[in-house]
């Protein structure tokens, strides 16, 4: 019996797997070369390589895994290296559509040519501002213009003059009024007075009437001719202006046409711009001065350059790759709808909002076009309509800029409809696994558009070769972040800590973010200690400091126990009472803490009542664990008689709810103790789940649980206490140094059990007992006592039932 229990006792070597730093060939990580990729993500890297390499629609990537596993870093680093070797994509410009200004045209130019065109047009406009007015100030132009005006004027005056002469002959005066002309009889240069007119004979009246009517008709014709003359004059002037404008503009634009002759769309734009300039040549000239208007307080008219007319000839350099080499790799930190697909901005002018193609702004998709766009899936999904917009763009392989209002048909205001730009981008989403699985199952389009999943590991195998890689990774981060180099000892300690974080002696955590943080904190402590390199003790100090900063609650709970507020025994024996172990998790810190679990039994109908469950303080897994106990009891002890107990189980002084089945073996021990009447050693704490066959199964947080009970025992004085864990958890043990030392000293023992029998023997010191050939447990063993007690309860119950039947009959 004693030797059986000793077999369960774990040797100190089993409690911690140290890193063999003697295998390291370096003194500090400063001697190691940089690691090309991140660590432990070979499978994910392979997936990324595949996803990026395949050039088919829909093969976009989703990098899934817990936050902090280096998804973004891997994507950035891998894509950065690949993109540098790829072709730099074309530039894109938006220019005015002179026929339909509301539909700006997109121009595609080889990388770097967009800015050249923009500068060319800027220079052209600057030249035109002076060239056009100069052309119109030449003596030649003025002479021709005056000739046209003179011709028009003479036509008008001649018509009036002829009329005037005829009127004079007929003694009719033509007099101006504020609104026209009055024809009246005259004598010499004087209009006949009404009195004199009345004195004239009737025949004279008729003659005058006839003359006036005739002249009126002629005057009417003259007046009707006036607009025609003016129209003719304007037409001639327009032709002249066009001729002069072509002279002024043509040769300047010719130079640009030659320069961009290899790009027909650009040449077409230049042709259209030239025609528009000719049609609107007046806009280039300073408006005529009107000092009187200024005197009257009227706002002075603005020249075209001030009114923004010339904006129509500008080039909106929409996507500029002039300073890029290779394909772009872009991460959009704030993937709003607008930041993703671009927008048409507006400017306020005299209280009204206006826009033009110059105000079209690119989104991340435009800037990453021809390359790679990395997005955080969670952030993307948090932005209204951004996810839908991204999918639409990927599906249609083109980018169409429209406001949310337009997209939802909420506004019908006339705005711009920029020509869509073809999209050729590889989108890389990063996010938690849950998000990936949700999208995969709920969004039918998701699987069509994101066909490549790269699943990131949280841990990697621990081996000598991997240790070396880990060291290299530490060296790479240290160099990149400007940290001190890490000694072999520090690397060893980090690897051991990585194992502890992974909760497995055979694994190391690949949670690069928390590990990087630890590197930085270790560097801090090394610098505090004025060390040239980070040592193992600096790493240890950083770990302890991290714990110290987070363990307020742990200390508080421990205090409560030490003060007797929370009742936990660490010595003596009690029937139906076992120390269980729980893990509390708060943010990034978790710790173990003992709980008292008690069991009471009485005659009943085979119910094992979980008080936690009754009051809804337990989760479903915990409840399942408790229900398994009935199965175990019934199967082992009451195969041929009814299970006639009523047992109640409780986590004493637990007020916050319990979840998980790691206490199910503990509860079973308490139950067995209560049934057998055998006391349980309170110097031991127990963890492990149990199945219906009494096998003890692995649980999580084994290190924290052991350390939680150790801290209490240590505070009270170590005296042969210990913890019993499932044997399958031994490989997870990476215990604190003080725990290992106590185990080595024999003051704190850790037992590993495979089944309930092994456990109950350790807890009670009484053999569990196996059935003999007759199916009986040996006398006095735990199982014998339990069985007898259950049989006794069953008999009592049967007797009670008979008595009840008799009474009823």
């Amino acid at each position, binding site marked *: 019996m004693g030797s059986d229990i000793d077999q369960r006792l774990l040797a100190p070597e089993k409690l911690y797997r140290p890193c063999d730093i003697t295998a390291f060939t370096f003194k500090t990580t400063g001697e190691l070369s940089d690691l090309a990729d991140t660590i432990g993500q070979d499978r994910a890297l392979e997936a990324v390589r595949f996803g990026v390499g395949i050039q088919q629609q829909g093969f976009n990537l989703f990098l899934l895994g817990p936050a902090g596993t280096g998804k973004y870093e891997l994507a950035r680093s891998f894509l950065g290296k690949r993109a540098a070797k790829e072709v730099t994509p074309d530039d894109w410009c938006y220019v005015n559509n002179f026929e339909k200004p509301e539909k700006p045209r997109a121009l595609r130019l080889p990388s770097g040519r967009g800015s050249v065109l923009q500068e060319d047009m800027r220079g052209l406009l600057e030249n035109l501002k002076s060239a056009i007015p100069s052309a119109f100030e030449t003596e030649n132009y003025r002479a021709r213009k005056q000739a046209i005006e003179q011709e028009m004027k003479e036509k008008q005056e001649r018509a009036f003059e002829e009329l005037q002469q005829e009127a004079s002959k007929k003694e009719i005066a033509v007099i101006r009024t*504020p609104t026209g002309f*009055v024809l*009246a009889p005259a004598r010499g240069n004087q209009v006949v007075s009404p009195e004199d007119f009345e004195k004239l004979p009737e025949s004279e009246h008729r003659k005058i009437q006839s003359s006036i009517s005739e002249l009126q008709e002629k005057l009417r014709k003259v007046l009707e001719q006036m607009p025609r003359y003016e129209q003719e004059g304007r037409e001639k002037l327009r032709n002249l202006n066009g001729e002069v404008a072509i002279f002024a503009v043509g040769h300047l634009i010719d130079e640009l046409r030659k320069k961009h002759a290899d790009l027909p769309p650009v040449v077409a734009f230049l042709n259209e711009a030239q025609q528009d300039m000719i049609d609107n040549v007046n806009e280039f000239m300073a408006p005529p001065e009107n*000092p009187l208007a200024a005197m009257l307080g009227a706002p002075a008219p603005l020249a075209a350059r001030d009114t923004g007319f010339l904006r129509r000839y500008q080039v909106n350099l929409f996507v500029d790759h002039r300073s890029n080499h290779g394909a772009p790799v872009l991460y959009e930190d704030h993937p709003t709808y607008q930041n993703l697909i671009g927008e048409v901005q507006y400017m306020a002018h005299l209280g009204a909002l206006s826009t033009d193609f110059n105000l079209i702004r690119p989104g991340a998709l435009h800037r990453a076009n021809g390359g790679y766009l990395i997005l955080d899936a969670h952030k993307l999904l948090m932005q209204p309509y951004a996810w839908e917009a991204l999918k639409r763009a990927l599906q249609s392989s083109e980018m169409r800029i429209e406001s949310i209002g337009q997209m939802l048909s909420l506004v019908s205001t006339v705005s711009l409809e920029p020509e869509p730009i073809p999209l050729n981008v590889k989108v890389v989403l990063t996010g938690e696994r849950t998000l990936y699985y949700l999208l995969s199952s709920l969004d039918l389009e998701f699987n069509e558009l994101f066909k490549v999943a790269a699943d990131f590991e949280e841990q990697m195998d621990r081996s000598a070769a991997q240790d070396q890689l880990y060291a290299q990774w530490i060296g790479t981060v240290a160099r990149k972040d400007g940290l001190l180099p890490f000694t072999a000892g520090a690397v060893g300690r980090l690897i051991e800590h990585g194992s502890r974080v992974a909760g497995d002696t055979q694994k190391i955590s690949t949670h690069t973010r928390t590990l990087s943080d630890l590197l930085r904190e270790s560097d801090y402590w090394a610098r505090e200690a004025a060390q040239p390199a980070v040592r193992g003790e600096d790493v240890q100090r950083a770990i302890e400091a991290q714990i110290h900063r987070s363990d307020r609650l742990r200390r508080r709970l421990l205090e409560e126990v030490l003060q007797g507020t929370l009742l936990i025994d660490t010595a003596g024996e009690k029937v139906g009472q076992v120390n269980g172990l729980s893990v509390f998790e708060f943010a990034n810190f978790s710790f173990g803490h003992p709980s008292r679990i008690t069991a009471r039994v009485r005659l009943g109908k085979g119910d094992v009542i979980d008080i936690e469950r009754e009051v809804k303080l337990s989760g479903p897994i915990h409840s399942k664990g408790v229900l398994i106990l009935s199965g175990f009891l019934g199967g082992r002890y009451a195969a041929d008689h009814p299970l006639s107990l009523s047992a109640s189980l409780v986590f004493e002084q637990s007020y916050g709810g319990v979840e998980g089945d790691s206490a199910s073996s503990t509860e079973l021990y308490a139950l067995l103790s209560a049934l057998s009447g055998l006391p349980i050693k309170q110097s031991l704490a127990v963890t492990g789940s149990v199945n219906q066959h009494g096998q003890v199964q692995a649980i999580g947080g084994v290190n924290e649980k052991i350390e939680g009970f150790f801290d209490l025992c240590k505070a009270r004085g170590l005296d042969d206490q210990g913890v019993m864990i499932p044997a399958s958890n031994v490989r997870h043990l990476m215990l604190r140094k003080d725990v290992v030392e106590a185990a080595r000293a024999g003051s704190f023992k850790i037992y590993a059990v495979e089944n309930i029998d092994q456990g109950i023997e350790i807890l009670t010191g009484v053999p569990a007992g196996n059935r003999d050939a007759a199916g009986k447990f040996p006398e006095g063993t735990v199982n014998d006592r339990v069985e007898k007690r259950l049989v006794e309860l069953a008999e009592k119950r049967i007797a009670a039932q008979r008595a009840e039947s008799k009474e009823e009959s």
Partner: protein
Amino acid sequence: MSQSASALTLRRILVALDASPHSLAALETAVRLAVNANAELLGLFVEDAALLRAAEIPLARELSYFSAESVPVSREGVELKLRAQSRQIQATLARAAEGARIASSFRCVRGNVAVEISSAAGDVDLLVLGRTGWSVGRRAGIGSTALEIAAGSVPVLLLPERGIPEKVHLVVYFDASKSAERALRAARELAEARLGEIAILAPSGLAIPASLIEPFSANGASIEIRTRSFDASNEASLLRALKAERDGVLVVGSRDLLHNLPPLQAILCDLEMPVLLLGPEPANP
């Protein structure tokens, strides 16, 4: 007249106005001159008596500018329109004067246009006439109206349709006569105020006395002066010289000199060149 006496002192400037664009050009020029000379501006609107008379004749009809339709006309209707025009002109003048911070007044009279303007010009230093002030729409007779109005001693500025540009130079017709000397002095005074330049049109071979030129650079003045010659025996030559200087204002010392010049009609209508007629020289005090 003493040599130092001012050839053109501007204290009161009269501008004849109607509501036409030409009239507004005249107002603009008059305001500018008044500002430069710190002179008072007097606006005058004449209700044409001939028009009112014509409106009373039963047969009279008005033909609208805009529709070319013939409508009956009445004295009351014409008076109403003239009053509206007068109010509009008065308001325009007041706002322009206020904007330019000059003193101004306005008068509306009824009668013969030429007579009323001449009468109002009796106590001013300069009369500014826009095109409608010196022409009633007939090419024939241009100049005669102007001369009729400007028969008195008041200098008259006759403006073409386009008025006077902001930056303008002065063109003096110089034939060595006293009147021409006076024109040159007046031009100098105007140029000093406006810091402009002066072009002298002189017959070929005619030397301009140094005594007339020296004052242009005296007392730190830096008035640019240049000479343009023409063949006195050839009228076309003078016309060409004037054409070359048509962006300027032609300053003529006396009405008499007009006989030596091309007809006013050609200068004002064809060249669109403003003309400043100085009028007869005042008698010595």
